[in-house]
């Protein structure tokens, strides 16, 4: 098919043009096409792709989040992130596909996540074939940047001190209501610990956009993030 040919050409171009480091992170587009079957029940990509259950994925690289068109209704959280400046890059898509709810807590994408790093790289290599130049040429940053949003197991294994979390949480409660209200500012009550920890680290590393949260998370240690996660997880 023409599409596959194009992907082969692109992959070849990348392999030839930029050396081993780029090739490693791009992955196997042909294998990605097979993996995309899981996504295809909701997402279209390629010529004539339309927004269906999920938004169409042409030109997803370099696209602002929640901007596939007026006819697509996004979750509040994804809309907020788009307005805050979240742009789909290799880095952000990689994080999103790995665990959608960790990046966008209220996403409507009913997908548990693709845990295998190679699978994600292959899938993204496939999707990059459908994004227009310059987002899919290797020298255009930051789409071709390697990224690791996975946290080391020891970070995820920290057992948070709830009493400390309760004190630290008072800083959060200036904006995020104890009731879990979700108007203007999202609710943070009752999140699974791991989602909370990953979300805060994503702000700390500035993968998630939003200047206030980047500032707040930026000065929290791993232990403090774990303490907050432990405290908020138990609130109802």
């Amino acid at each position, binding site marked *: 098919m023409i599409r596959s040919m194009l992907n082969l050409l692109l992959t070849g171009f990348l392999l030839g043009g930029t050396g081993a480091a780029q090739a490693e992170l791009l992955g196997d587009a042909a294998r990605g096409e097979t993996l995309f079957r899981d996504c295809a029940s909701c997402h279209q990509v390629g010529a004539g792709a339309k927004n269906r259950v999920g938004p169409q994925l042409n030109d997803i690289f370099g696209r602002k989040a929640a901007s596939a068109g007026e006819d697509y209704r996004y979750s509040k959280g994804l809309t907020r992130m788009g307005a805050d400046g979240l742009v789909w890059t290799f880095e952000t898509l990689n994080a999103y596909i790995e665990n959608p709810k960790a990046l966008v807590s209220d996403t409507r994408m009913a997908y548990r996540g693709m845990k295998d790093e190679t699978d994600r790289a292959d899938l993204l290599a496939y999707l990059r074939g459908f994004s227009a130049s310059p987002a899919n040429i290797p020298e255009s940053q930051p789409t071709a940047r390697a990224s690791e949003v996975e946290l080391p197991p020891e970070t995820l294994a920290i057992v948070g001190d709830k*009493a400390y979390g309760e*004190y630290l949480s*008072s800083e959060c409660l200036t*904006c995020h209501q104890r009731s879990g209200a979700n108007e203007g500012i999202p609710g943070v009550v009752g999140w699974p610990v791991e989602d909370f920890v990953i979300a805060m680290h994503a702000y700390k590393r500035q993968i998630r956009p939003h200047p206030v949260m*980047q*500032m*707040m998370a930026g000065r929290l240690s791993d232990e403090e993030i774990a303490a907050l996660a432990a405290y908020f997880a138990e609130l109802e």
Partner: protein
Amino acid sequence: MKLNRRAFIGTGVAAAAALQAPMVWSQGRPRVVVVGGGAGGATVARYLAKDSQGQIDVTLVEPTRHYYTCFFSNLYIGGFRDIASIGHSYGKLAAEYGINVVHDWAVGVDRDAKTVTLAGGAVLPYDRLVLSPGIDFVDGSVPGWDVSAQNKMPHAYKAGSQSELLKAQIEAMPQGGRFAMIAPPNPYRCPPGPYERISMVAHLLTQVNPTAKILLVDPKEKFSKQALFEEGWARHYPGMIERIGPDFGGDKVEVRPDAMEVVIDGTVEKVDACNVIPGQKAGRICEMAGITEGNWAPVTGYTMQSRVDGNIYVLGDATAQGDMPKSGYSANSQAKVAAMAIRGELMGSSVFPAKYSNTCWSLIAPEDGVKVGAAYEPTDEKIASVSSFVSQTGEDAALRKQTYEESLGWYAGITTDMFG
């Protein structure tokens, strides 16, 4: 949260009856008296009562039964909020948190006897005292103006009836008339406040009096979020706002309230409405307690304790603490550190390192919101800024709308954090 269900004296009960009560209850319980029921005082009272599970006897002294937040009062002037939506009562703090709310003025502090005297004559003993009185105005700051002129030229820098008065005067201006603001010198409550107010007055005037003009007389060379405000004014209110800074006499201003005149470096300007925001100092009770140096009450950033008297904590606008702006958000942030430190002293509970933060949202025009914020940590000398951010000029409409919506979420959050 319903932590303590005793039949506490509520806000509607006569002050005299309320005053007798704590003496009876407080046998054995440590007593904290909080003066001022705003972002600092209401928050510290609520956290002390909540986190001590009623083991600390908390009395909150606040003269008004209905508290109007200064934050968002500009949005009232602009027509984005009604006055009722920025008013809050102390009923929940009394009924659900067991705080003894006393509506009276604190008029004296005896630091040796550890008592606070109220205007009604009552004397409240304390183990720890928290002063969170906000601001008062510096006498003679704007020649020709004093509090007796506040009906002709409102300050509207303590919200409520003053905000309503100012809005009514602006709405009553003749078509094509002129509104003036005398902006305050540093330091003052809410650094972006005067400029958000200019934006909101401009918005109101475009609705009801589009040929009117605004004269902003400013003693400062620079002001908070200046690039953002000036960009917004040029875009939304072209030709309406004239700012006179110190290079053109903005720091040499006198007002004549009876004649509705503003005199700028000798030049007389007739105006139709005038908002005078004078220079500011700590609420007077700090001076009466003898804990001020200059206009403000110095505190240590580790705990918010007064540097003069360790039994007294000071919060919010009244303090000299370092880098934090005088804002409701700052006062709320400081209150949580103080509540933790006081519980540690009185109850032996865990004390963690102080962390502070602040964000100030401002509205420039409908759905055009901006923000500035920073995180802070204490050093031996002061509360020091450790990181900060500010909205950028040229941001797209979706981000500005979201920033505004976020500010609405923050308002709901902080007022719940203050009043329960």
